[in-house]
């Protein structure tokens, strides 16, 4: 799933591009959530004991509904505005990867039946988790639930991560939440991990900023995509013997996969003649996404109380008390999301002071041009809504020092 070893590569080579934030700091933000990934997680963990899962009276699994319901309420209560993006038809290029997953699942199923025979509890749990599959029905259930909750749902024509990234690029959401590092390759300006983790785990949200990644790795977006393809993505195999670190070195040295292929020692590295890296690159750069404004007009509305009770209590055996209480929470959360954020009014500037305590981190000055470009573009987006106000104001932004060093690299993105 995703890009092999990218998290570690970034942690080692672009540490300032990732930042841990408290869950609560995202209040008021619109966030695109990769629904399929979340549903998959819910099916694995929510209400599971061994191979047993939460079910309704008819014996159908309801873990995904339980998970989706409670985690979405958690987001709403924190004042966030989630929009869930569902996968459409996977691109043909992914078939190979999907086949691999299928065969892994088949293996797991075999393992599971052996474990059940041997009554090995640990193995039963392990293998049954691996046999989890998100079906069409699960997706439909969740869409229905979300619509009843008044949370917008977007059906991607193809990959959900690509659609999420497109929403974020268009400034319709602040960030993309997924566990799949692909989102960065698709160019999501801001990408969050662990947002959908259960609160009991107490993991802080990890925020990645693509502009800072590019600045710190000293790569262009195209080169970053090439780096991801070389590291290993869902669409094609990577070159045997080349991992993330080597890939980064090669990209820095040669600039593109084409140049790398020309210069690579063919005896040492086996490269298939028909290595479809160009096709993979195209899928990352121009993925099939919907840009229809009508469909992407995201609206958060009040919950359909009766609908929720019918669906959850009557059809899926949820406790009526809990659902009623949860609906109250959704309604109360509406109030919270109206709080404005300061960034919508004031724009970040660089602080001219130099920390008295010398920082250990080194040479961040190196080529932060892309970061600034990015800042400008997002400025335009956000300004369009406020230009009216700023028109009235003189706007002398103080603290525009001339020889700034470190703090400039902290210029933040404040799009959504």
């Amino acid at each position, binding site marked *: 799933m995703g890009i092999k070893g990218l998290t570690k590569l970034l942690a080692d080579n672009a540490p300032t591009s990732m930042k841990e934030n408290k869950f609560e700091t995202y209040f008021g933000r619109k966030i695109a959530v990769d629904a399929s990934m979340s549903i998959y997680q819910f099916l694995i963990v929510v209400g599971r004991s061994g191979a047993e899962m939460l079910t309704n009276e008819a014996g159908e699994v309801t873990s995904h509904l339980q998970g989706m319901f409670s985690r979405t309420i958690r987001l709403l209560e924190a004042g966030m505005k989630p929009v869930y993006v569902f996968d459409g038809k996977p691109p043909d290029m992914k078939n190979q990867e999907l086949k691999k997953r299928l065969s892994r699942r088949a293996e797991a199923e075999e393992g599971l039946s052996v474990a059940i025979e041997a009554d090995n509890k640990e193995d039963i749990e392990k293998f049954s988790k691996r046999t989890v599959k998100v079906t069409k029905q699960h997706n439909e259930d969740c869409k229905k639930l979300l619509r009843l909750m008044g949370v917008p749902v977007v059906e991607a024509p193809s990959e959900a991560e690509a659609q999420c990234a497109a929403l974020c690029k268009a400034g319709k959401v602040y960030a993309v939440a997924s566990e799949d590092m692909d989102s960065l390759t698709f160019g999501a300006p801001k990408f969050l991990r662990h947002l959908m983790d259960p609160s009991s785990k107490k993991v802080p949200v990890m925020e990645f900023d693509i502009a800072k990644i590019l600045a710190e790795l000293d790569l262009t977006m195209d080169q970053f995509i090439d780096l991801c393809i070389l590291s290993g993505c869902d669409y094609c195999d990577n070159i045997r013997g080349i991992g993330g670190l080597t890939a980064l070195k090669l990209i820095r040295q040669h600039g593109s996969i084409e140049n790398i292929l020309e210069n690579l020692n063919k005896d040492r590295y086996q490269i298939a003649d028909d290595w479809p890296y160009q096709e993979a690159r195209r899928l990352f750069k121009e993925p099939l996404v919907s840009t229809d404004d009508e469909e992407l007009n995201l609206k958060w509305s009040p919950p359909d109380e009766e609908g929720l009770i019918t669906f959850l209590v009557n059809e899926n055996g949820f406790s009526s008390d809990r659902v009623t209480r949860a609906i109250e929470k959704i309604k109360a959360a509406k109030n919270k999301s109206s709080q404005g954020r300061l960034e919508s009014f004031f724009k970040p500037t660089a602080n001219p002071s*130099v920390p008295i305590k010398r920082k250990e981190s080194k040479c961040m000055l190196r080529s932060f041009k892309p970061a600034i470009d990015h800042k400008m573009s997002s400025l335009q987006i956000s300004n369009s809504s406020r230009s009216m106000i700023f028109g009235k104001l003189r706007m002398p932004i103080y603290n525009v020092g001339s020889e700034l060093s470190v703090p400039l690299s902290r210029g933040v993105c404040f799009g959504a």
Partner: protein
Amino acid sequence: MLELRLVQGSLLKKVLESIKELVNDANFDCSSTGFSLQAMDSSHVALVALLLRSEGFEHYRCDRNLSMGMNLNNMAKMLKCAGNDDIITIKADDGSDTVTFMFESPTQDKISDFEMKLMDIDSEHLGIPEAEYHAIVRMPSAEFARICKDLSSIGDTVVIAVSKEGVKFSTKGDIGSANIVCRQNTTVDKPEEATVIEMNEPVALQFALRYMNSFTKATPLSSSVTISLSNELPVVVEYKIAEMGYVRFYLAPKIEEDEEETKPQV
């Protein structure tokens, strides 16, 4: 090299008490013009801007622009150890990772040094544009604190509306509602007891009382408070620090849902 000597040490104590609830960690910026701080609360709804001008210090030396990251709770702990009449001196050396607070008793018979570790704080600095406000209200700070406290026992949001009638603070909650109107009043014995309302345009804005209450922790700094309001801008609640500067709190307003619909989705 940095050395700032403040004769009225209690001022710094009060400043810390007024902001430490809102902000945990912050960078203090030191330049030749003064000692300042700008920091947002963790949810980026409120911002505090502090300025203590260099003229207000008895001795002020700052060779180059520096910032010092401090944990405000720890700093407050140390400043609590200073007596109310003590002279406080802030000292730091270049490249050092500590700051020293020196407290001298007025009779010079006791001198204490407290050294605190500095921290690396990744803070975002916001450019705050100079704005013309639609309405500016100056009123006794204790009165404002009382209003915020009273209203927060009824509801969690306050509507501050300025009109020809005066300034109205109102809230609604489960148990009922409350309205408090303050009228212009300049016929008072002491100028700081006056309520002065300047209005170019009527304004009505909604704010979370939780933050307002936190701002009123600065009440001991000044006997009057200035509240500047403009539609669609954060409110500014300013406490002047005599002859030295100010503590200003900015708070983003609450935005009505249906109003938001008409704006482009950002």
